[in-house]
Each structure stands twice: as structure tokens, then as C-alpha cells.
């Protein structure tokens, strides 16, 4: 995977003592850790425990993290492992307290699929965070629910109505160009297409 310079810089900053860099890493990736805990249907208390364990492990790993760009994957794997430990411990406790359903309660294959979505979401948020303010605002308007008309967006941004569409295209093009997203799309396209096909074009612009 190509290095995302922003993530690499944040990891380096946190390693060198910047609390601000650490805080930004946590803000970026807390949603990833949290959503994985939800996939395992952990209680709020267990979710907090897993979160703490994962961040504490990352603090210790900062100096030895060889590929900072692989951080989302590392966080997902670590969170998944901690969640499984909680699920096992809960199961053990339930067995001690009496007979329970034989189901473990979570479907591993379903969770693995969901984890890929969670990692994808994290990469999309990374790419979004690295856009210009103007692009972030425009895309946020476009994502409002209920939807806002182009005319209203144009009014808010003080641009002609005809400018919204082209700006949207430009911002999404920049989003695709963010290194970690480009790499993710590239590898996903390889998986789908067997390494060739029209989808490749989107990552090479």
C-alpha cells in the first residue's frame, strides 16, 4: 500500500511526543474501533474496555510501527482480537452460570465482511479529512439529509448554480486521488477484475 503522508506524519508526531498528533490519530480512527465493537454487539462497558486496550497497545507500538500507513488495518485486527477475547470471556461466564444457547452469538464470516466495510469507511474519512475546506463543505452539503438543491448549495457557497456540478466532480476526483483511498480502490479493483479492466483508470488520474 502506498504511504499516506498525513498518517505517516501523525504517527511520527505522536512517537516524538506530540499529544496533538496523537489526539488527531484517535479522532480519526476511534470510529473504526468503535464500529468494530458494535459489530460484535459488545455492551457499552465492554466497548469502552476494548477501546482502551486498543489505544494502549497502539501507544506502546508507536515506536515500532514499521508501516504507519497500514495503521487502519492494524487497528482493525487488534480490535477484532480484543472483541473476540471479550466474547469468549462472556461466553465462559454464561456457561458457568448455567446452560445457554449453543450459538456463540456472532457470525464470524458476516463480521469479517463488515470489518472490510469498516476499514473502507476509515479510509474514506481519511481521504475526506485531507480535502480542502471548500471541498469538505461542498460535499457535506451534497450529503445533507434531507437533500439540498444545487440552487441552495450555490447560494450558500456564493457560486453560480452551474458551478456546483463541476466542483462536485473536482472534489470527488481529489478524494479518489488521496493515496490511501487510491490504493484501496486499486486493490479492490484488482480483486474484482483480476488485475485489469476499466476500473483501474479511476486510480491513475
Amino acid at each position: 500500500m502506498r504511504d499516506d503522508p498525513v498518517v505517516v506524519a501523525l504517527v511520527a508526531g505522536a512517537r516524538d511526543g506530540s499529544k496533538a498528533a496523537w489526539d488527531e490519530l484517535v479522532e480519526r480512527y476511534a470510529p473504526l474501533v468503535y464500529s468494530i465493537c458494535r459489530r460484535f454487539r459488545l455492551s457499552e462497558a465492554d466497548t469502552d474496555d476494548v477501546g482502551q486496550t486498543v489505544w494502549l497497545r497502539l501507544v506502546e507500538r508507536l515506536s515500532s510501527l514499521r508501516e504507519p500507513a497500514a495503521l487502519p488495518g492494524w487497528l482493525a485486527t487488534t480490535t477484532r482480537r480484543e472483541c473476540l477475547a471479550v466474547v469468549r470471556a462472556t461466553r465462559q461466564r454464561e456457561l458457568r452460570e448455567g446452560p445457554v444457547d449453543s450459538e456463540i452469538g456472532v457470525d464470524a464470516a458476516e463480521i469479517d465482511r463488515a470489518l472490510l466495510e469498516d476499514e473502507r469507511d476509515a479510509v474514506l474519512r481519511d481521504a475526506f479529512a485531507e480535502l480542502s475546506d471548500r471541498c469538505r463543505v461542498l460535499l457535506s452539503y451534497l450529503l445533507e439529509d434531507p437533500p439540498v438543491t444545487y440552487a441552495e448549495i450555490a447560494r450558500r457557497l456564493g457560486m453560480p448554480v452551474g458551478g456546483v456540478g463541476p466542483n462536485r466532480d473536482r472534489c470527488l476526483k481529489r478524494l479518489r486521488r488521496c493515496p490511501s483511498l487510491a490504493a484501496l480502490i486499486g486493490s479492490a479493483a484488482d480483486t474484482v477484475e483480476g488485475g485489469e479492466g476499466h476500473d483501474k483508470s479511476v486510480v491513475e488520474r
Partner: protein
Amino acid sequence: MTSQWWSDDDRLLSALGSALRAAHAVPDRFVEAGKAAYAWHNIDAELAALTYDSRRESPQDALTRAEPAPLRAMTFAASGLTIELHVSNEALVGQLVPEQPGHVELHQPDGLIRTADADEIGCFAFRPLPAGSFRLRCHTDSGRDVLTGWISL
């Protein structure tokens, strides 16, 4: 082939929308706890590595056993100092090896610290068992400062 989330701008925008909505669902306290973990960065103590954990030896047993809580044993090792831990229902009991007196701190992620003295043969105990995860920091009278990894019982 079926259309993918990156195939066109509409799909990409909608994937971005769901990613951003997922981030809004995260409670503030979850994020704040993560930020607080940085307090453990660059702690000036030797790290002791987990060299034995009875639970790791028999994960399958742990999954299916229906008896009361099994005893768990762990060993953490730094150069020249080993920390042996035994867990029962009531207490966390440990010993510094080689046998020596000292002072042991039990740190919890929320910043809470409990302390216990290690006697002349290095034995110490924490009652009741800590809830949640914790780590031990051992100061020996000879001047060693050794920290275990995080432990969840």
C-alpha cells in the same frame, strides 16, 4: 460485474456519506478515553514481556469449561527480573524472582493506582481482583523499575 462503491461518483459519494455518519455515532467519552491513553507514552520503565500465559496454552478449554473460574498463571520477564502472577477468585498474587523486596503498583486505564508491598521473598497480593484491564509496575528495593504489559482477566 456488479457495480462497486467506487465505480461512479454517485456511489462514491454515498459511500462517503455512510462513512461520515458512522463517525457521528461514536460517543465523546470513547474518543476522550483514547486520547488519555497517551499518558502511557514514553514511560521511563523497563518493559517486561509476557512469556507465559496459562490461558493461551488452552484456549479451547477456556471456551468450553463449565467449572468455576480457573486459576490463571502468567509470567512476565525483563532482563534479570521475572514477575510470576497467579489469579484466583479472590486475589491476584505475585512474586518477584529472584526473591527480593519492593513495591508494586497496579495501574488501571482510568488512572487509578493501587499499591502493595513485596516482602523479603518478593511476594505481594492484591485483593480484591481488579475489574477490567490493568498493568503492574514493580519497583524493587535494589532500584529496578519494571512494567508489565496490559492484562485482562
